[in-house]
């Protein structure tokens, strides 16, 4: 069975809960943490490879905890012509994939840091961020 890649987004209220432990212990999942950005009292993101029979149960547990769960089968791209480098995305992007280089104040996108949370799609005023399947 091939592993399932998922993206988790969670608020500061659950950043200190042992959710990975629960996935292993209660749902018998084999977990590979591909990326993680977890800090106490801050919103966090995680990309996981999950293998096991109870993936659905584990994902339901996460959703009950208030974690947003999405399948990672997509990547985000930036339409360079459309982007005005305003910077509105840079304080929203949870992983720093969209960032500002100072003092030039130019906006860059590092796809390697992106966890496809898709927040930037809603936030970009000129809709320069797109999902590629």
């Amino acid at each position, binding site marked *: 069975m091939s592993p399932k890649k998922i993206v988790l987004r969670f608020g500061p209220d659950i950043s200190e809960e042992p959710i990975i432990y629960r996935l292993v212990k209660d749902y018998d999942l084999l977990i590979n943490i591909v990326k993680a950005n977890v800090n106490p009292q801050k*919103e966090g993101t995680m990309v996981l490879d999950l293998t096991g029979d109870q993936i659905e149960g584990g994902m339901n547990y996460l959703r009950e905890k208030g974690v947003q769960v999405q399948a990672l089968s997509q990547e985000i791209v930036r339409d360079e012509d459309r982007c*005005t*480098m*305003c*910077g*509105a*995305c*840079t*304080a*929203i992007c949870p992983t720093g994939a969209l960032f*500002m280089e*100072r*003092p*030039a*104040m*130019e906006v860059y996108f590092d796809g390697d840091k992106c966890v496809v949370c898709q*927040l930037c799609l*809603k*936030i970009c*005023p*000129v*809709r320069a961020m797109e999902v590629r399947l």
Partner: protein
Amino acid sequence: MLRSYSEINAKIKSGQAVVMSADEFISMVEEKGLSAAAKTVDVVTTGTFAPMCSSGAFLNFGHSSPRIRMQKVWLNGVPAYAGIAAVDAYIGATELPEDDPLNSNYPGEFRYGGGHVLEDLVSHRPVTLKAISYGTDCYPRKSIETAITIDDINEATLFNPRNAYQNYNCAVNLSNRTIYTYMGMLKPNLGNAHYSTSGQLSPLLKDPHFKTIGIGTRIFLGGGTGYVAWHGTQHFPSIQESDGKSLGPAGGTLAVIGDLKQMSPRWIKGVSFTGYGASLAVGIGIPIPLLSEEIALYAAASDRDLYAPVVDYSDAYPGRKPGCLTHVSYADLKSGKITVQGKEITTAPLSGYPKAREIAAILKERISSGSFLLTEPVQLLPSPADGRAGNVLKG
């Protein structure tokens, strides 16, 4: 008095004018001192590229055969105001299609509105014009649906009643839920801070007492040439001196006008604010003639000298409660972090600084090359000394 408009224009025509963008001028003043820099430089150029509500265009579609007196008009499904004349309409930046889901599925996306129609027009893309009427003896036709482009119609005049805010709030959120505003998405408990001026490049921050910018000032507008038509709506310039700092609220604004047909989609862009609505990003650049050392002093103000008020958009702004949490300098805002109520907050702009710099550079090039002469205003705009202030709407 260092120089007059006519002396500056004579120098521009002979290719002798010394023109600098505001950021270059700031560096020169730091290096050589104000007096020497003011003597050397004739014109300082400014720039801003940001979402600017209170924008739109007057369109004259031309007459069909047979004629129609358009009573209601839609452009790509977005209503335009047609109560002007038979085939004249005004398409406003924040107008939305009647079938837009708005905020019914909160936060709404507002993917297409009047600002996007303006961008489609300026991009020379076909736009569907639909109009209905009741029919008259001289205008018998009752409906029309056709594709237009900006090249097909008689006039497309951008007329923005309020643009180029002198200064603007730095928006934060003190509540415990995410809010969606025209200042972007604001995360709970001071999760982020958004601001929207180009700071030391911002046109009206460089002429805070309106000593040069007035009715008839020729400007860079949306990539073409435009003019200051009037003071903008909600033009309330005011400066408060505090601890040796000049602090201003949102301040002055401009009403600007120009031929949309000359403009470029690079500088006229439809924007969508999730949970709020649609608008238009407009590029504006204004030349400041250094007529006197005092004008040069204001033009030399740097990000360290300019301050934005920090305002809570969860309660104080919607409730129209006066005052602000604190003031922060644009140098601090641009550093990426500010401290409010003891908490360090990540900052981000909605106004693109690289684009503002590009506009100031384009304007500099146009003036240096002799293709853009300065105009002396027919009348200056109200200044902070005039004490204009906003009225509260009762109800």
